[in-house]
């Protein structure tokens, strides 16, 4: 059953990429536990707006956990305390009355802050642009039924392809590594017969771009997997390393 709770929020405020940020404290009162985390922030923002104050900027869009637009570090955990859940699908029933909640943006050199909790994740787009695709032109595809794909392979490819590109893996990693993100795309395509032809260049180019963007390396902390709202496995990183090694050898 839903109930009402009172919360103290400690939220990172930063005017833009150039200025220094700081924490500010807000009270959120009579919050219905059936609310989503973002709906709770909506309520805080409505109140700030009515007081003529600048509301807290945060990215969000679908609010169904699939677009990957939302995300913040909640009490030290990207997307908050519930496993396999984006911030928009986190509900207030997971918090206690009178709890203090610390809310921060993703923190990584690869993701500069735009304002408050909103960050610039265009590095991910550049990584995909460097090779995260099969270069088939429109119109040149063969009849779909000419290609059989083993169900288990297809399912594993899907598990990796489920990545929503939110960046929680980077935010969770002590090295701010983007390995899970890159490995998910590499694995998705490397597992499918369609992805074989370009697989060597793909993994080399994507890893190179990842390094250029300033993301760190993997030191097997597994924090990324724990933070991933789509529960993408670190085994994809092992697969990427294998693919990368074999691409480098030849």
């Amino acid at each position, binding site marked *: 059953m839903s109930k009402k709770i009172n919360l103290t929020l400690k939220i990172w405020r930063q005017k833009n990429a150039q200025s220094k940020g700081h924490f500010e404290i807000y009270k959120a009162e009579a919050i219905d536990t059936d609310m989503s985390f973002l*709906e709770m922030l909506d309520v805080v923002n409505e109140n700030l*707006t009515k007081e003529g104050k600048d509301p807290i900027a945060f990215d969000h869009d679908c609010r169904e956990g699939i677009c990957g637009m939302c995300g913040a570090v909640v009490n030290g955990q990207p997307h908050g305390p519930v496993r396999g859940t984006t911030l928009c*699908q986190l509900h207030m029933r997971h918090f206690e009355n009178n709890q203090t909640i610390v809310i921060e943006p993703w923190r990584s050199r690869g993701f500069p802050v735009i304002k408050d909790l909103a960050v610039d994740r265009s590095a991910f787009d550049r990584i995909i642009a460097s090779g995260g695709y099969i270069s088939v032109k429109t119109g040149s*595809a063969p009849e779909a039924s000419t290609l059989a794909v083993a169900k288990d392979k297809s399912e594993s490819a899907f598990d990796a392809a489920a990545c929503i590109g939110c960046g929680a893996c980077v935010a969770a990693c002590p090295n701010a590594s983007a390995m899970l993100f890159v490995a998910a795309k590499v694995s998705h395509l490397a597992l499918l017969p369609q992805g074989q032809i370009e697989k060597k260049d793909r993994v080399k180019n994507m890893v190179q771009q990842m390094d250029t963007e300033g993301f760190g390396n993997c030191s097997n902390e597994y924090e990324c997997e724990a933070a991933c709202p789509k529960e993408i496995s670190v085994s994809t990183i092992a697969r990427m390393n294998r693919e990368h090694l074999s691409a480098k050898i030849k």
Partner: protein
Amino acid sequence: MIDSKIPSGLLKDKWTRHKSSIKLINPANKRKYSVIIVGTGLAGGSAAASLAELGYNVKVFCLQDSPRRAHSIAAQGGINAAKNYPNDGDSIQRLFYDTIKGGDFRAREANVYRLAEVSNNIIDQCVAQGVPFAREYSGYLENRSFGGAQVSRTFYARGQTGQQLLLGAYSALMKEVHKKTVELHPRCEMLDLVVINGQTRGIIVRNLINGKIESHSADAVILATGGYGNIFYLSTNAKACNVTSIWRAHKKGAFFANPCFTQIHPTCIPSHGDYQSKLTLMSESLRNDGRVWVPKNKGDKRRPSDIPADERDYFLERKYPAFGNLVPRDIASRAAKEQCDGAKGVGSTGLAVYLDFADSINRLGKDTIKARYGNLFDMYQKIMDTDPYREPMMIYPAAHYTMGGLWVDYNLMSNLPGLFVLGEANFSDHGANRLGASALMQGLADGYFIIPYTLGHYLAGANLEKIQSDHTEFKIAEEQTKNRINQLLAIKGKRTVDDFHRQLGKLLWDKCGMARNERGLKEALEQISVIRDEFWRNVTVTGSEGDFNQTLERAGRVADFLEFANLIVRDALDRRESCGGHFREEFQTPEGEAKRDDQNFCHVSAWEFNGVGKTPQLHKEPLIFENVELVQRNYK
């Protein structure tokens, strides 16, 4: 006069003949042409990739931080195609007929036939891109069934088909970004269209990070900016979905077609409270295995499991035995509303019906149901905090998709030369009701397989002057855009943008939602003006124009919804018949089904802008049916 430019000849030959007779631009000359695409969902993303592959210079704009986030990503259930892999009698003709009939005979035959024709190419293209569609143990593609069809023609990728298809289109787009054939502008919102000497030559955008107003010129503009379902405030759309780009184009002369054709989806998670910010869809595919019911007795407050079978009313199966739980969306939604209006609704608000999987779990086992719908069940549990494997889901209809949109001809060009409109943003293929798994099909058909042909045809025949973005018309449009922003910031009133948006949304939901009548619509027209006037006197928009200012973004969109609302209601008032999602209470059969008036309303209503709050000019495009017989839709 409006000319749909439908090619002559037999229905099945029209597209083939048209493709082989339209003008071409030679490969080396394509790079001399520039194209602007606004929106990066299935339609915009696939168009951008395909046009760049052909050699055009493409500029792409989206308001999200990445093109991968467009709301196509949230489509769950699947995509239709007439492959007939299950050997159950499907064909292009049947997909065409189901779509025309599903749309209650208010779409163009030629467009819909073409859609069915290219549907198969889409599946081929997506498989080649690496979209992980569901497969059988043999390794071959699997299909399932969807509403409004008696064959299994829906291809799917778990409950995330839209995501996987969009990532396919996005990756194709990023491949072109890498080759520098596409210039990408994320976090940019289109705020005006620029028309010079009768030709569409560019757009005005606001850079959402620093607030800068910029002009971009091109030889043609393609809008693929999605639907306007968020006018209802609560809808299954993403929060940023809006009418702004197509509304601004409408104000510059583009006709708006059938705005009152809005789709209310039957299976959404019901609203909780006043703070509710959006509604979440539960895929139509669930109706394959879920049975919809309410208690037979009014106000029965027992737990669903305590209500014996003979005290349950499986109302869809009872009313529509042939299609059962898989009737089209408009029919399922109205049937649920009818039960709730009759005090049979369940849940704390009485605005919900059950979607029950108990029989399927008994028959197939929990594991099978989990494999089919696991992510949807998880999402339901997260939001509702109850376990749908043990208790039936509660669902209620919600605004989901808009069949109406900018008017386009057979080439997907609006009445403004050089302005093309793709996907949900146009009106073209779904008539008065869209069938499930057809939106993905249309978005990708438009982007991958139609615009690459028809854009070249226009450019080759257009006499295009050299125009740069420093042309006076751009300067004027920039000034107007800045003025409007400053006006919004200067009001400094007492009510928030969301507060106005909620008020407008509730008004439209009540008066122009699942059921409409003349009195209610007239009241709505009056109230819309009142809300709009108050908005411009009393809204509060914090921050400045030169910032990352999400309140300002929303204010601009709500201001446009407040203007556009007039048009939806006027269109609903004008169409004195019921068809598909447009249900006028005055026009129904004795059984309470939609009663069309083919004598007087077998046309597309294309509206021309005449000023804010002024009566728009109606242009009628007659719908001519040569290949199907107009019948009362029957799903019994």
